[in-house]
C-alpha cells in the first residue's frame, strides 16, 4: 500500500510570528520546520504501510522558497521520498490555491497513492479546509478528524471525532483522511534515519511544471485581501499571589466573589 502524506513546513512556532507590513502575510524568511501537527500523519502512514506488509510513504509539500529542512525531518522518520512544489508565485496562496497545488502534486505520483493523509489543520494558518478541498479536487471521498485509522480489504475504517463522541466511518480507497493530534505517538528520527534521509529523493516541481495557471495561486488566486491589522482590546493582569500553601483559599474566595460558589 502506498500512502502520501501532505506536510507543511512552517516558521518555528517557538519564535514570535510576524506579518509582513506590506502584504500582511506571515513572514516565512527564517528557517522552516516540520509542523508538529504533521508528525501524526507521517507516523500513521508509516504504521499503515508496515501493517500492509509493503509499499511506500511519500511526502507532499508546498513552500515558496525551496525549503527542505522540515521535509528532511519527516524523511528521517522513515518516509521514502518527497515531492516539493516550490515557486515564488505561490506566496500568498490561500487554502484553495494550496489544495489545487497539492492535488496536482498527488496526480504526479507513480504509483498513485491508495491513501492521502493530512493533519486537520496547520499550526500557522489553521484554515482547516485544505484536506476536503484536496479530496473534492481529486474527486475522492474524505474522512476528517480521524482519531483511529485502519486499512482492511481495500477500504479505510476511521473513528471520526464528532461533537457527541465519534462515528465509525468506512471509505473505499483511494481516500483523503485527516488525522487529529495524539492518534499515534510519532517516532523520533533515529541517527540512522537522519543519515538515510539525506539521500532520499526530493523531486521539485514549479507551478508551471504541474500545469497550474499562475492566476489560480498566490495572492491573485486567493481573491481576498487584508484590510487592516490592529491591536485588540487588551486584557490586563489582575492579582498575582504566590502559593505558600494557602493559595486555594484565595481561589475559593474569588469563586465566591463572582458567585460561582
Amino acid at each position: 500500500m502506498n500512502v502520501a502524506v501532505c506536510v507543511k513546513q512552517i516558521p518555528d512556532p517557538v519564535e514570535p510570528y510576524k506579518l509582513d507590513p506590506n502584504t500582511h502575510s506571515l513572514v516565512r524568511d527564517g528557517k522552516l520546520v516540520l509542523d508538529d501537527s504533521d508528525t501524526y500523519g507521517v507516523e500513521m502512514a508509516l504504521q499503515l504501510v508496515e501493517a500492509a506488509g509493503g509499499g511506500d510513504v511519500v511526502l507532499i509539500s508546498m513552500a515558496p522558497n525551496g525549503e527542505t529542512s522540515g521535509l528532511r525531518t519527516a524523511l528521517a522518520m522513515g518516509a521514502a521520498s518527497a515531492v516539493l512544489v516550490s515557486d515564488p508565485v505561490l506566496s500568498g496562496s490561500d487554502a484553495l490555491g494550496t489544495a489545487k497545488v497539492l492535488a496536482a502534486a498527488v496526480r504526479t505520483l507513480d504509483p498513485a497513492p491508495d491513501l492521502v493523509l493530512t493533519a486537520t489543520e496547520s499550526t500557522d494558518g489553521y484554515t482547516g479546509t485544505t484536506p476536503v478541498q484536496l479530496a473534492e479536487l481529486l474527486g475522492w471521498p474524505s474522512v476528517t478528524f480521524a482519531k483511529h485509522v485502519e486499512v482492511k480489504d481495500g477500504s479505510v475504517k476511521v473513528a471520526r471525532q464528532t461533537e457527541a463522541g465519534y462515528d465509525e466511518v468506512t471509505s473505499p480507497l483511494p481516500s483523503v483522511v485527516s488525522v487529529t493530534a495524539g492518534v499515534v505517538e510519532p517516532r523520533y528520527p533515529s541517527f540512522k534515519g537522519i543519515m538515510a534521509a539525506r539521500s532520499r529523493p526530493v523531486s521539485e516541481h514549479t507551478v508551471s511544471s504541474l500545469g497550474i495557471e499562475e492566476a489560480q495561486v498566490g495572492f491573485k488566486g486567493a481573491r481576498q485581501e487584508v484590510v487592516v491589522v490592529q491591536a485588540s482590546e487588551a486584557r490586563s493582569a489582575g492579582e498575582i499571589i504566590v502559593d505558600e500553601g494557602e493559595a486555594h483559599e484565595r481561589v475559593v474566595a474569588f469563586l465566591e466573589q463572582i458567585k460561582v460558589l
Partner: protein
Amino acid sequence: MDSIWVLAEQSGGSPLGIVLELLTAARSLVGAGTVEAFTWGAGGAEVARVLGEYGATKVYDAGDIGDSLPGPRVAAAIAHQIAAGGAPRAIFVPTTYDGRDIAGRLSVRLDRPVLTNVVGLTAEGADLITEHAIFGGSQVLKARFTSDGPGIYVIRAKSFAAEPAESAGVSDVVAVELPETGATDAAKIAGRHVEAQSGPKLDDASVVVSGGRGLASAENYAWIEELARLLGGAAGASRAIVDAGWVPYSHQVGQTGKTVKPTVYIAAGISGATQHMVGMKGAKNIIAINKDPDAPIFSIADLGVVGDVSKVLPKLIDVIKSRQA
C-alpha cells in the same frame, strides 16, 4: 441576489446554538436582503420553526442524508440550488466538524475562496469585513473577499450573541434535491457512538476548568475533571496534552480547538501559548495556576496563583467538597 444563507446544522432535532448566533449576525448585516437557512437532517418542520424565530425567511431543506457524511452531499445540494435558483451574497458556515467539511467541498464546487476562523463581521457598503483573532488574540486582522460572491465565511462559535428576531416566521420551506455525488460520497457512517457526558458541554458551560502540561501526567487530569464536576462545569485541555494523547481532541480549547466564554475559566498548569489564549480570553473571569511566574497566562488572569498545580488543586478540591458536603 442580496440574501445571506446560514448553514443550519442540526443535532437531535434542533439547530445547533451556533446556527442561531449566525442567523442573528446575518440579520444585522443583510440590509435590505433576506436571511435564509440551508439545512439537512431529520429535523424537518420543527427545525424550520426555530430557524424562523431567529429570522430565516426561507429554509432550504436537503432532508435526511442517511449514512452519508454531510460534506459532499450538502455541498453538492447547495451548489445545485445556487445553479437552479441563484446565489446568495454570502454563506455563513458554523465552525464545526461537518461545517468545515461542507465549506471546503463547496469552495471547490463554486471555485470560491473561504475565510475561516471569523470572529466578527461588519458591513461596509456592499462588502462584508471579517475579523480574525491572530497571535493569541493580541491583534485583530480584518479582511474581505475581492472576487464575486458568494463569499464563504466559516465563523467561530460565541462570536455573536443569539437573539430571536422581532418579527418571526418561516414563509417558505423549499425541499432541495440531492444531486449525484459519485465517488466523493463513498465514505459511509457504519456506526455512531455517543460518549457518555456528565455535566454541561464545553461550549456551553459557565465554568471551564482546563489542564495543561503542568499536570505532569495523564492520570492527574482526574483533578481537572473532578474540579469541573464540583463546580458544575466542563473539563478542557491545552493543545500540548491533547497532542500528547492524554485527553481526546474534543476537550481542546484554543485556536485549533474550541472557543469558550464561560463566567470563569480556570487554567491549571497551562502556560498560555498564543494558540490557547485565543480560545479562552473571552472568559468573564480567568484564574490561572502555574509554577512559572513568567507564564504568559498571568498577563490576562484576573487571579494568578504562582504555584504547583499538584499542591493547589487537591486542596482546592477538598475545600470545595467539604463545603458541599
